[in-house]
């Protein structure tokens, strides 16, 4: 038993080899590699959109109106005669940015907060988790409405507001992980070795809890993207003529019987992106699973 414990401490300290191992394992997972490739493609397209988009994003042709896919407009046009491909490309910039930035905000706050609460335990933990309960129970709708109104509407605020709502579950999960890890022998050993709490959290707890964190992150990105769509749909998010995938889908769903392409292509794009994210997240989880790797 002692050997195992010491070996784990070594693993955790040799961070570089851990990540190199993970990368090797990840490359063997075809789905994950595919996911990574699709995601990188989406990001590159989003970054280059202003230069490579086939049309101006607000160029209308009212008399054309909603037209099905054609040689001129590969994915068809919306009711204003705007090129749907262009719309999806510009929408991707917003959706991906919201997804990644807001999730990062949530990740940063949630993991730090949850790890501290779980590690310190006792009264501090109780107070910290009651605060989470309070925030959970707050009507976030009004919270975001207020933010948008009082500080004026802008995209940065949208990221922060969504991130500020989404970190709560992350904190709970992290806390749960840390609590159970804390009772494991290798952490107790590290404590008895006299390592400082910050070091233990950073070196032992966070890396060992990475699996669930990554899984939950891959769950958070989609829900953040959907939350953005929901808010935009209520009129609290992106302002037209700017758009996002979520908005394109919700408009498309309204007219899916008449103009199905307006729903199918944005829906497909979002779905593919989210699938890729999830494949990648799973792959990373398996690749980073320290314990599993030693079998």
């Amino acid at each position, binding site marked *: 038993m002692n050997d195992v414990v010491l070996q784990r401490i070594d693993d955790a300290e040799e961070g570089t080899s851990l990540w190199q191992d993970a990368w090797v394992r990840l490359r063997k997972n075809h789905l994950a590699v595919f996911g990574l490739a699709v995601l990188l493609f989406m990001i590159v397209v989003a970054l280059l959109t202003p230069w490579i988009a086939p049309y101006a994003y*607000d160029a*209308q042709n*009212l*008399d054309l*109106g909603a037209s*099905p896919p054609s040689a001129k407009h590969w994915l068809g046009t919306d*009711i*204003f*005669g705007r090129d749907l491909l262009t719309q999806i490309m510009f929408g991707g910039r917003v959706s991906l940015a919201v997804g990644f930035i807001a999730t990062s905000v949530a990740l940063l706050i949630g993991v730090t907060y949850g790890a501290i609460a779980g590690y310190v335990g006792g009264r501090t933990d109780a107070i910290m988790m009651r605060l989470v309960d309070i925030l959970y129970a707050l009507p976030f709708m009004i919270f975001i*409405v207020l933010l948008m*109104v009082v500080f004026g*509407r802008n995209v940065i605020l949208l990221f922060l507001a969504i991130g500020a709502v989404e970190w709560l579950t992350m904190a709970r999960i992290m806390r749960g992980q840390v609590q159970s890890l804390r009772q494991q022998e290798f952490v107790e050993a590290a404590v008895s070795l006299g390592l400082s709490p910050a070091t233990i959290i950073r070196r032992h707890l966070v890396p060992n809890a990475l699996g669930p964190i990554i899984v939950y992150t891959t769950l958070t990105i989609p829900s953040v993207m959907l939350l953005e769509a929901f808010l935009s749909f*209520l*009129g*609290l998010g992106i*302002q*037209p*003529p700017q758009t996002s995938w979520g908005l394109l889908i919700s*408009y498309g769903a*309204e*007219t899916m*019987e*008449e*103009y*199905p392409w307006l729903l199918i292509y944005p829906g497909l794009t979002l779905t593919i992106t989210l699938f890729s994210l999830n494949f990648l997240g799973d792959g990373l989880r398996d690749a980073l699973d320290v314990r599993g790797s030693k079998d």
Partner: protein
Amino acid sequence: MNPFRIFLLLLSISLVSCAGGESNVEKGNRDQVLHLGNGTEPQGLDPHVVTGAPENHLLRSLFEGLAVKNPYTLEPEPGVAESWEFSEDGRVITFHINPDAKWSNGDPVTADDYVWSWMRALHPDTGNLYSYMLFPIVNAEAFSKREIEDFAQVGVKAADPQTLVVTLSEPTPYFIQLMDHYSTFAVHRPTIEAHGKFSDRYTKWTRVGNMVNNGPFNLEEWLLNRRITMSRSETYWDKDRVRLNKVVFYPTENLVSEERGFRAGQLHYSYEVPVEKIPAYRELEDTPYRQAAYLGTYFYLVNTQRPPLDDPRVRRALAMAIDRSTLLRTVMQGTVLPAYSITPPGTLGYEPPKLFDFDADKARRLLAEAGYPNGEGWPGLELIYNTQESHRKIAVAVQQMWKDALNIEVTLSNQEWKVYLDSVSTMNFDIARRGWIGDYVDPNNFLDLYLSTGGNNNTGYADPTYDDIIRNKAPKAKSQDERFAAFYEAETMLMEQTPIIPIYTYTRRRLIHPSVCGLPSNLMDSLNLRYVWLDGGRTSHEEPCQS
């Protein structure tokens, strides 16, 4: 296969046959039960407390005013009052109440009921948002502003139980029309007082079992956010004419779901129709789609106090740069008519002036004269609208038209309803979307908006000459022609200054099952169920109804 055609096919299949049991419509046709889409859950059913179109439809079935509008002609016809006459100078109206008019508990409806009810409607404690409907009456406004305490000084008297005498401060040709508005309906005093003070809003007198009303239908069931069922009244004075046994009103906020419900045979009558579905419905043979002119104007408010909009040339340039016919043909699928002034055309025969048309060149010239040749030096403006799909569509298209015609940037900002209302009432906007639906058929209802003291002006437009025409010249006119000439003069002055940019005149669009008879469309969207019946054998609106 073209998706449009698939949709058409689906439509026709589901309209003809309905698998899976008997639908509401089929069952309703047999039992004379009408199923109506009614927009939203009503705020309540107290005529002096609530406002809104869905509430209007419900209240007009439960209650009846002194005079009602004929649904075909909109001419006033007897309601609770069997007749009325005007005095020589047009300032005193004597209503003769029908002796057969009864409350649903059997009590007779009396002139005293009206005196008490109008006291309630006008009393500031009631908080009636529509109290101004009765302001043509002598001292009514003063009473509602607590300037006089004694209601006896207000010009409403019961000469005897059957005779109500109303004294107006000025001759008001449209006053009889107002008797069909729910804020002037009578309510049953003993019932209200049994459940609280007259001015209480938080009371249970409107609940099933408690409510006492005087209209063609009685409240039978009220399931919150689900449905309201009414059944034929046995005490209504004209009950022999009423042929529907029951009416079921559904709150149908989501238009797309409502349309699906209609197709599935759950509704006889829809509150709205999603614009994208209209072309397919128009293609149908025996289409259930009905479209009718509606007394309302959709427009943009301009804040005339903010540069560069303080320059009338800029405002006119903006108004002229909108290609309304293209906008409405495409985005609105040709369901509404372009508007060039505030009053809807044909309001009681009044035709508003048309001072401009779409003219991009002239708009550019005007903007150049104002100091922004080809949009150079344009400071940028914001257009606000409340969150709604159709407002967004129009704003997105108009934004681009302004950019194309004038090379100027206007950003869009949709705001949730209360924020939008706050922005409009405090004039915290550059340009704001607005709509106005007439409360009664008269140009005055639109033109008095822009009085310099008008609470709904919200543009900063103020012209003493304009005020004088609306306040004095028009009311004192000897004939309707003279009155309309005065309105025309005022409206021309208004539109020269362009504090508003008219976009379109509203229409009412509905899906109505062909079995519905006796329910004509009219300018006021006035739903009078007293005349309605269901003819299950009728398959097209073109066929005559069998009675």
